[in-house]
């Protein structure tokens, strides 16, 4: 059922729908990671310093959430189009673990510290660096899924 399904048929029969799903996936992650990175850069004191991280988070969070919906949905479509290949891929499960860790981290620790009024500077920076590392690792996981089978 995972290998033969309506989505797989559509995507394999019309190459452009696969390309479209990939574009939505990459565009979506660019917006979601990019919006999270803006908060991280603020927490690292590298930009947008005239506003608090909490306020930056309030501005960016809707973008992050909407983009994440697009990323996950298009990612699911890409997965279902070739589920048999992804299920035996060595890197893919690793990417999923990092993704789940990044998502949980983003909406718990990261969110909490970004909203703190006077977080210890070291904590602030550590939380931001971990966030950037997690999300960049997800991107690397995605590319490596395609290269190292």
């Amino acid at each position, binding site marked *: 059922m995972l290998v033969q399904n309506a989505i797989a048929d559509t995507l394999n029969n019309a190459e452009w729908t696969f390309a479209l799903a990939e574009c939505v996936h990459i565009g979506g992650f660019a917006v979601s990671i*990019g919006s999270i990175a803006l908060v991280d850069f603020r927490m690292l004191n590298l930009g947008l310093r005239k506003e608090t991280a909490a306020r930056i988070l309030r501005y960016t969070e809707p973008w992050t959430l909407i983009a994440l919906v697009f990323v996950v949905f298009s990612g699911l479509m890409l997965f279902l189009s070739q589920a048999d290949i992804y299920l035996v891929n060595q890197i893919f499960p690793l990417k999923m673990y990092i993704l789940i860790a990044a998502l949980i981290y983003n909406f718990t620790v990261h969110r909490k510290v970004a909203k703190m009024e006077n977080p210890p500077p070291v904590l602030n920076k550590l939380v931001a660096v971990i966030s950037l590392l997690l999300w960049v690792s997800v*991107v690397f996981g995605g*590319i490596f899924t395609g290269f190292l089978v």
Partner: protein
Amino acid sequence: MGIAHSIQSIGFLTDFSESVLAYPIVLSTHLACIGLFGGMILATDLRLLGLTFNSLTITEVVTSLRPWKRVGGTIMIAMGLLLATSEAEKYAPNPFFWTKMVILGLIGVHALVFRPIVYNKTEELDRSPAIPTRAKVAAILSLVLWTSMFVMGRLIAYWD
């Protein structure tokens, strides 16, 4: 074809495209930059349109993100150059690649046109009661150009 072949035959480029790890690492870096620094371009454009970060001045958004966008752009172009030149023979006949290069050129033109009247005049924009049309035009064109740039990048893989 001769030139493309000579380019990709340069020693380190051949080593690079044949390496199991280097190629995907460079491609991942290229893509991670799209995320990290593309977000900053998006933030700047949306601020120019008055859609977000309204408690920050345009000046603050443009000037504080500018150095990072430069760093990101440099890494992105360097990585892209490696990816394209190491497989020059594959890229040379690809119309999506050349469309992408034309768009990259147009992004340069956009900078030349709008830097003196928008990006280097942010204090003037901040003093204006409403965001001037020229700033909004710059933002919309930037969004269109960068979106097409990224779509062409993806489509390069689909031409055969």
